[in-house]
């Protein structure tokens, strides 16, 4: 079989793609070589360095060779398909241009052309360099998407570069009146745009599937149709969403943001209704199961956000610089345990379970780690209200344990500014109702424990009612305590 026949057959052989995938490696060689040649030439012309012309010729030769190899590998890689053709073609011709003009420049030097040699040399050399930049930009757009370079470009620069202003893709806007909303345009498309079209668009076309236009979505991709109007159960796009996340066929791929169960229900319902392009909700059959999902699209926030997004602890989002090892060591000498909270953050948990004498003097050692400490366990220590003034400076604190210490209402007032605090244990302290009120005013607080403190049951009940997001545990409630005493049946 001739090479041409192989190239024209429908299935690209694996070895072709194997060689093709060396393109990203090879392509960086002419870039580096040409740039170093430019720098040497500039240095030579300005007389800053003494380099023989042989050196630049030698570098030009290898620029041309590597550019040629990169072109070959790039062509083989493109046979795998899945790239936007116009952009791919531009990239190809620019790449070939780099190789061609590098060869020309080298040839002029090699043959030592006298008449008109210099302008030709400078022209082809300069053009090869310029084309390197242009081809490199196209290559980046092919691999990472058109807006890779400009996505995080600051505003003023955008206007200068003529790039459209930032478009938020993270949030999906609530629908004003869900009954009158056009299902595809206002409900389905935003989900596809948030979760699918990054890879299935005009440029990237993974699996030859485009999901940015309804007509193209209906056409399907390499594996046939992905959407069967009227039959969501037979539609591959729904089947793949429902597969386990670790399954190779699951979409979106593992690690990418996933569709919520409600979003899948919504798209499946739309397909079952025949995947109409312009029908409104009121023109379709709304069953009891889908109604709450549709209605939730009218609510602000992530529509149908599923199970756990609202309850995720803020600690996951906290960032801090790495702590100094000497500060940690100094703190450890007081007998406390200092541990990293997780591998991905520099946050620390500090536990004084073995340091019952931890008190005012030792608290000072926490301050150099003020940004890192997020869990602080000081139960049954000598800590006082005065020390809490300093603890208030640990701004990333999310969990604070003060159980069975001499803390009172003054101490709580001191830490009231800790905005990330979620957990506060005041069991067995002198904190009273007013202290609990101050704690309840903390914006991030989710649970506070006041058993065996001076907090009264009635105040705990009342403050609990006023703060529905806050769990106040003031010992066993009557409902919990009574059945406990019931005799065995």
């Amino acid at each position: 079989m001739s090479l041409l026949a192989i190239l024209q057959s429908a299935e690209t052989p694996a070895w072709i793609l194997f060689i093709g995938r060396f393109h990203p490696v090879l392509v960086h060689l002419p870039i580096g070589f040409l740039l170093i040649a430019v720098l040497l030439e500039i240095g030579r012309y300005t007389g800053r360095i003494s380099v023989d012309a042989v050196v630049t010729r030698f570098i030009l030769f290898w620029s041309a060779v590597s550019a040629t190899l990169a072109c070959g590998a790039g062509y083989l890689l493109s046979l795998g398909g899945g790239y936007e053709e116009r952009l791919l073609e531009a990239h190809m011709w620019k790449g070939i241009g780099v190789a061609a003009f590098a060869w020309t420049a080298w040839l002029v030097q090699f043959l030592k052309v006298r008449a008109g040699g210099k302008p030709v040399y400078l022209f082809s050399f300069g053009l090869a360099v310029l084309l390197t930049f242009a081809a490199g930009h196209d290559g980046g757009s092919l691999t990472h998407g058109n807006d890779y370079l400009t996505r995080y470009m600051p505003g003023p620069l955008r206007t200068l570069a003529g790039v459209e202003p930032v478009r938020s893709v993270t949030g999906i806007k609530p629908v004003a009146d869900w009954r009158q909303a056009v299902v595809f345009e206002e409900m389905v498309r935003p989900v596809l745009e948030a979760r699918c079209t990054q890879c299935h668009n005009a440029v990237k076309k993974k699996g030859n599937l485009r999901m940015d236009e309804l007509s193209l979505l209906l056409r399907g991709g390499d594996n046939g149709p992905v959407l069967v109007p009227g039959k969501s159960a037979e539609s591959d796009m729904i089947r793949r969403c429902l597969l386990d996340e670790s399954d190779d066929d699951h979409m979106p791929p593992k690690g990418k943001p996933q569709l919520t169960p409600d979003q899948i229900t919504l798209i499946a319902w739309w397909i079952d209704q025949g995947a109409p392009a312009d029908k409104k909700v009121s023109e379709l059959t709304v069953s009891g199961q889908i109604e709450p999902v549709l209605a939730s699209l009218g609510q602000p926030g992530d529509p149908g956000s599923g199970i756990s997004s609202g309850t995720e602890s803020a600690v996951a989002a906290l960032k801090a610089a790495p702590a100094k090892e000497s500060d940690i060591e100094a703190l450890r000498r007081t007998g406390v345990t200092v541990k990293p909270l997780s591998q991905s953050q520099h946050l620390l948990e500090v536990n004084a379970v073995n340091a019952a004498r931890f008190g005012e003097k030792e608290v000072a050692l926490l301050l150099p780690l003020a940004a890192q400490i997020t869990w602080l366990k000081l139960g049954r220590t000598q800590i006082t209200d005065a020390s809490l003034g300093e603890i208030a400076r640990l701004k990333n604190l999310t969990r604070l344990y003060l159980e069975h210490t001499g803390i009172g209402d003054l101490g709580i007032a001191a830490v009231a500014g800790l905005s990330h605090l979620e957990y506060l244990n005041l069991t067995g302290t002198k904190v009273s109702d007013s202290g609990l009120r101050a704690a309840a005013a903390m914006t991030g607080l989710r649970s506070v424990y006041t058993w065996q403190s001076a907090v009264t049951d009635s105040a705990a009940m009342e403050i609990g009612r006023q703060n529905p997001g806050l769990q106040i545990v003031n010992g066993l409630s009557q409902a919990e305590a009574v059945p406990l005493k019931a005799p065995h049946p």
Partner: protein
Amino acid sequence: MENLLRELEHLSLQRKTRRHFLQSAGLGLGIMGLGSLAGCSSTGSGAAETAGHSGLPHFAPKARRVIYIHMAGAPSQLELFDYKPELARYHGRDCPAEFLEGKKFAFIQGVPKMLGPQGKFDRYGQSGAWLSDYLPHLQTVADEITFLKAMHTDEFNHAPAQLLLHTGSPRLGRPSLGAWAMYGLGSENRNLPGFIVLASGGRQPDAGKSVYGSGFLPSVYQGVQCRTGGDPVLYISDPHGMNRNARQQTIEAISEINQQIYDDVRDPEILTRISQYELAFRMQMSVPEVTDISKEPQFILDMYGVKPGEGSFGMNCLLARKLVENDVRFVQLFDWGWDGHGTSSNANIEGGLRAKCEASDRPIAALIKDLKMRGLLEETLVVFGAEFGRTPMQENRNGLVMPYMGRDHHLEAYTMWMAGGGVKRGYTHGETDELGYYGVKDRVHIHDLQATILHLMGFDHEKLTFPFQGRNFRLTDTQGKVVRQAIA
């Protein structure tokens, strides 16, 4: 004199085992010596008892501690949790052939009869969880619990099933869940072991100490069993005539000698030995203090239904609370005697199971409430369950009618539950078919449960690995999916 020499030779021959030969041969070759060094570098500093493995956990844990309650022998889910009214209608009828074809049971032979549920079921709490009258106290904390109704396993005999549950493999030699947790997180309290085992019911679990062993992990991570009556740890008190100072000097001298040997031969097990001696010395103070329940107020004792001095499951629950309160990482409770085959007056549904529930239901509910009011429940994962479940059929051992009502081992579907530590409150996950034979929705395999517990403790179960015999091992081996629906 000749006798003495012969005895010496005999003794030295006895001591020279294959291991010694391999060790010295290995050192000669250099390669094996290198392997042992590579192995020890991961535990490194000798401060392993508190340090854990660097670079772990992978993300901020929701469950800082675990209390794992294992009812060894396996209680019947059909009497306690999984309400199957349809099964009552089939009570006494022959088991359908499709339940028996190609199946193996531990004891059932031929065609057994179906056995209807023996508990009176109702729904409890805001969440409306189904529970039976066998568990009148658990009813009061139903809203704290996530029930996994369609657990399934691969093993139908106690020992291999217990090993699979705790070590991820039905065969011996793998580290247990608690050992992995210790390897990853280390311990918080340097005066107490981070992994403590308390057993009740008169016997150890069938799979023996391997269910809390460290397998191929350094042995510093294995579970330490405490006794419930008398001295919690044997010989923890100083003997007569020995004071604490003298004891300290002894330990220091021994540690020094051990350190010299370690510098010579670099066997990581010597570091384990040193740290265990030192920990034991600190435990002389801390263990009696932590396990002393004489200072617990009467209403707490009443809540658990225990009396000072008794060694019971209830007392172990109370001790578990005291241990996690002192930042012990992993407390493993075993309670033996749940194997209700219907063969005797103890091992059956109508008497034995009820008695076991009466002894355990109150302390378990008390444990959850006690943890909650101390602010411990939200970061302490309580797991309840067994190695497998029981069949919807009545056991007919040797093809005979049994003297009492009982069920055989069942691996297709059974119930476990979790509470606190970042799991959902008042949630039921999974469903079984009308007769409770197969899981039909949201099945959870043992490896999925392990992946979920590790996830709650801050680990990616696919990345928590240890190199052994040429490859990386992990608790879930090649399987396991985190049950995300159960996580709050």
